[in-house]
């Protein structure tokens, strides 16, 4: 993932930030010093399911 510099304390704002291997990225992100360039949707979040126009059979009535 690429990051963009927000705070001048890290570098020139707007430039792409290439973190060293030893950098604590979480602290930089939480402090607002950098931000992700491209925010992709979380992979574990499924796409919204389509709702069928046909109504599902009523479970209670089926039991009776």
């Amino acid at each position, binding site marked *: 993932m690429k990051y963009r510099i*927000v*705070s*001048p*304390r*890290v570098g020139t704002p707007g430039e792409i930030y290439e*973190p*060293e291997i*030893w*950098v*604590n990225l*979480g*602290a*930089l992100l*939480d*402090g*607002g*010093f950098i931000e992700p360039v491209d925010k992709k949707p979380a992979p574990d979040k499924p796409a919204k399911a389509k709702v069928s126009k046909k109504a599902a059979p009523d479970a209670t009535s089926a039991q009776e």
Partner: protein
Amino acid sequence: MPTSTYLSNPVVTVNSIDLSDQCTAATFTQRYDQLESTAFGDTARKYVAGLGNHEITLSFYMSYATSETFATLENIVGGTVTVIVKPAVGADSATNPGFTLTGTLLPELPVINATMGELSTIDVTFVGGVYSKDVTP
């Protein structure tokens, strides 16, 4: 008489965040545990170096504004980061070495240190970590 003058104006970087303009004092101590190796027959105590036990003490003006002292340190207290202190601005070199402590722990952070009529300052100490000296530009 000193042959060279060192104006105390170091560059202090904590987790790649430059906090030099909030820092007023920096002490970087390279230290090793002192293990006694004195034995029978010796007439004086002898020691050998043990594990590295380095530390950095920094004094900062406290500021709660965005990207300032508190915003930097509150996210790393209790965790390990890399701290670099070098004598002056500019590239690393033999005469301007970047003293580095990698994986050093910030065990505590004074969140308030206020005195009426004075600027708020805090002292923080990073302990442990691997010491190195970078002289490569």
